[in-house]
């Protein structure tokens, strides 16, 4: 086994074993520490995946469209075409690191504060299991294995929401589980439509269509796109999201918004578009219209929200709309925009949910009307909130800018009346995004302190700063140097576009 293969296995095995170790550690605080260490080791294993293995990037006519830096391919269940085939490339690596980072921050945050509802030990163990599922989804290069990891996430996340969530947690958790399962059973059928037609589940071979007929590709793309649209979520299949995000505990919301949604958009790029390009071209206009509808509707709904967590949750619908618009253009610019938008949204929304959780923990309320004047009593918290909100609305120089701007540019570049209109409408949506975030800031930070805010102290706990500072720095870094993400993604995206537009 090469070092790269060892790292690939470690990225999945460390959190999995960590979860077991956490469950087996009797003392609660020690168990949380074990979990945090496991999450840290996972991040340590994920980062060096970027090195080495890029020797054969050199273009050649018959090179496959997916060229993983490192890969590991073992047989598992030949009867179901399931191979344990992992690999990492420039499309998946940023998301892998983001997942490992957010999980580490969440585990560290639980060292300091465990939400009401259950033991911190169980929460950390579940977070690690969720991490295994998400990382596996990003690393899988076998369609069936991809589906398997896609499913792994569902029940632990359900348990996190149902066990540690807010007042209406059971209903929200059940809605999340059933909605998401609805998506993933469609994925199952879609996967085997592809496998039955192509005779293989290997993503490297399949990317580009693998000679499947047009009818099969249309059917496969419809099923796969529906499945990922539920997960992403794409309007009108988003209605599970606001409830789940609002009711979930802070760490749950961070993981949900930060990386869980990315499984949908990543799947759309890697699986749906990659495997059924003909279907993607056919469905692109529909996808584009829905994405812009998501941007506009998400923004308008946000303008009318009165709860801070719910507002951030709905803002995800809008932001993921930009990501999907980027994918729908099927151009290199668009997909690059989608990838950086994905990562930026993960960083910024993760931070926003951390901050919203902190505000809610201190004041005991999430209602905007009761949160005025935070700047007076907790200037640092209010400042961070302002930073995150401004990053999220897409100010140039911060991470949120690139994804939204380039999605619009890509749409306009495609040209034609439809795409130009979509680009313009998306830009209007971007302006609406600014409107609702500024409204949020005006309500939360300005005016005289409300009774709930008046009692809040100015200090921030060390654990809070530890969890937030990396995200703040990343939002700045990606904003100033987008090449951190785009540089690694350029070659694989070009290769993908090469087969898609063939």
């Amino acid at each position, binding site marked *: 086994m090469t070092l790269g293969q060892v790292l690939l296995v470690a990225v999945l095995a460390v959190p999995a074993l960590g979860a077991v170790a956490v469950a087996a550690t009797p003392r609660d605080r020690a168990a949380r520490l074990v979990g945090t260490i496991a999450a840290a080791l996972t991040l340590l294993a994920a980062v060096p995946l970027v090195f080495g293995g890029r020797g054969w990037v050199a273009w050649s006519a018959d090179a496959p469209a997916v060229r993983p830096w490192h890969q590991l391919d073992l047989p*598992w269940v030949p009867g179901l*075409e399931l191979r344990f085939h992992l690999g990492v490339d420039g499309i998946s690596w940023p998301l892998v690191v983001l997942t490992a980072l957010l999980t580490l921050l969440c585990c560290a945050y639980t060292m300091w504060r465990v939400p009401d509802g259950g033991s911190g030990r169980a929460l950390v163990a579940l977070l690690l299991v969720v991490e295994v599922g998400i990382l596996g989804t990003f690393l899988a290069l076998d369609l069936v294995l991809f589906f398997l990891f896609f499913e792994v996430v*569902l*029940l632990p996340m359900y348990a996190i929401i149902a066990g540690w969530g807010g007042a209406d947690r059971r209903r929200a958790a*059940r809605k999340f589980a059933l909605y998401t399962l609805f998506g993933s059973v469609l994925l199952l059928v879609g996967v085997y439509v592809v496998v*039955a037609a192509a005779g293989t589940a290997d993503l490297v071979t399949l990317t580009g269509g693998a000679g499947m007929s047009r009818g099969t590709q249309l059917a496969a793309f419809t099923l796969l796109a529906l499945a990922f649209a539920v997960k992403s979520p794409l309007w009108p299949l988003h209605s599970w999201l606001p409830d789940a995000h609002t009711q979930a505990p802070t760490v749950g919301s961070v993981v949900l918004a930060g990386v869980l949604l990315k499984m949908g958009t990543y799947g759309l790029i890697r699986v749906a578009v990659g495997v059924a390009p003909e279907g993607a071209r056919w469905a692109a206009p529909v996808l584009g219209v829905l994405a812009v509808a998501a941007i506009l509707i998400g923004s308008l709904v946000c303008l009318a929200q009165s709860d801070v967590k719910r507002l951030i949750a709905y803002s995800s619908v809008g932001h993921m709309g930009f990501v999907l618009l980027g994918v729908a253009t099927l151009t290199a610019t668009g997909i690059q925009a989608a990838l950086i938008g994905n990562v930026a949204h993960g960083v910024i929304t993760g931070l926003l949910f951390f901050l919203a959780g902190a505000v809610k923990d201190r004041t005991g309320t999430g209602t905007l009307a009761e949160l005025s004047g935070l700047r007076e009593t907790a200037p640092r918290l209010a400042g961070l909130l302002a930073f995150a909100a401004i990053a999220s609305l897409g100010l140039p120089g911060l991470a949120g800018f690139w994804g939204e701007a380039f999605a619009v540019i890509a749409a306009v570049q495609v040209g034609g009346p439809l795409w130009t209109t979509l680009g313009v409408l998306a830009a209007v949506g971007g302006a609406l995004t600014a409107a609702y975030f500024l409204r949020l800031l005006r309500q939360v930070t300005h005016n005289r302190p409300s009774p709930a805010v008046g009692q809040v102290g100015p200090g921030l706990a060390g654990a809070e700063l530890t969890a937030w500072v990396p995200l703040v720095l990343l939002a700045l870094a990606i904003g100033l140097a987008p090449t951190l993400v785009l540089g690694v993604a350029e070659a694989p995206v070009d290769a993908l576009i090469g087969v898609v537009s063939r």
Partner: protein
Amino acid sequence: MNVVQSVDSVALLPAYLAAGTAVLVLITDLLVARPRATIAVAALGALGTAVGSALVGAGAERRTFCVGADCSWIFGGRAALVAVVVALITVGVLGLSVPALRAGRSPVGEYAFLLACSMTGGVVLGAAGDLITLIVALETLTLPLYVLVGLRRGSLASAEAAVTFFVVSVVATTLTLLGAALLYAVTGGLHLDRLGALLAEQPELRDLPLTTAAVAVLLVGLAFKVAAVPFHAWAPATYDGAPLPVAAYLSTASKLGGLVALLAVVQRALPADQTGPVLALLAVLTMTVGNLVALRQRRTVRLLAWSSVAQAGYILAPLGALALAAGRTDEARSAAYAAAMAYAVFFVVLELAAFAGVTALRPAGADGGTLDDLRGAARRHPWRAAAFGLALVGLAGLPPGLAGLFAKVTVVRALLDGGAAWLALVVALNAVIGLAYYLRVTAALWAPTPLAAPNVGGAAAVPVVGVVGVVLAVVTVATVVLGVAPQLVLDLAGR
């Protein structure tokens, strides 16, 4: 024709072992008259049957009782798989019965004897090569269960359940026999392979209304046994009234028996273009109705019963692919049969684990109770609740219950290979409905206990029961192993 048949006793060894177990149990109960010895003999006999079947099945296929090329006893890979699974289920059910037997709710000797008899039927069933052997084996499997269901002393529900089961089952058997008789009248053959060959060679036979009627009646009779909608109504009432271990046996061994009989008839004897549409319809109805009604259940065993009705739908689903021409190629057909068999094996293991979980969480000899009785069980018995939860999640087909996930994947794959995408979608959407109630039970296990009800099935009411715990642990380990290495089942089911 040679009148004296040569009998291959090695091929018959599993049947000898199973029947011998039953006889030995009876003798032990008469002579030794100690419950512990009786149960031990029964369990050892069943284990011996499993080992014997595995050994015979590991070799080449063996046939005996032959007339020309047609044999009444064909012990091949599938027969061995069925025999081993049935024997192991019997051991598990015996283990689950120990607390109830110890509590004196049922006579031990009779109980063990009847269970061993039923096992004999199951062992013979897989090897049956003609319709008579098949029906006799199926009845040997079912007949002792009428008594076992009603064996709980002083329980009216138990007696009612037995009568319901008896009446419905007798009607089903009559229908099956009528179907077999009509088929004989049409073709003059009783051996499954001969029937298949005759119907394939002479298409004019297939167009006779009598043949259609015979096929329909035969299938309906067997559908009763697997509790497929619309012939399912007996199952919930019977399961709920029966002692818990017997309900476990009914929903595992008995259901497997029904499926094996159905599979034998469909695969070898009847024309696929006639059975396919009927089976597709049965499958869709069964899973949909089972899942929808299960959503409304409040009693644990009734919920499991309805869910097992739904699961019968998933088992039948791959056979529904035969309805389409694309599903009737040789390759697609054998994939469909293997998928149905594999799903049945995965299901049987998970279902046994679920029933073992309920038994372990309930007081000795009690019935399944309501879902409220299980509330907060995880706080009192974390390990047992975890095992039960794993089984439920597996039945829902989600990780970490990988065995169940692979089972669903197998079915969907077989359907798509057979070109029946619509049926695959129906299966997939039903899995979503299924999750709703499996999740409700699982969530109840970890829910906070209501303060007002300390005495309902509380901690003190559940004694620490060794044997049930061991059975639960073993079956749970089996589900985990099958989840990691599902290829084992896929290989065996495809033989």
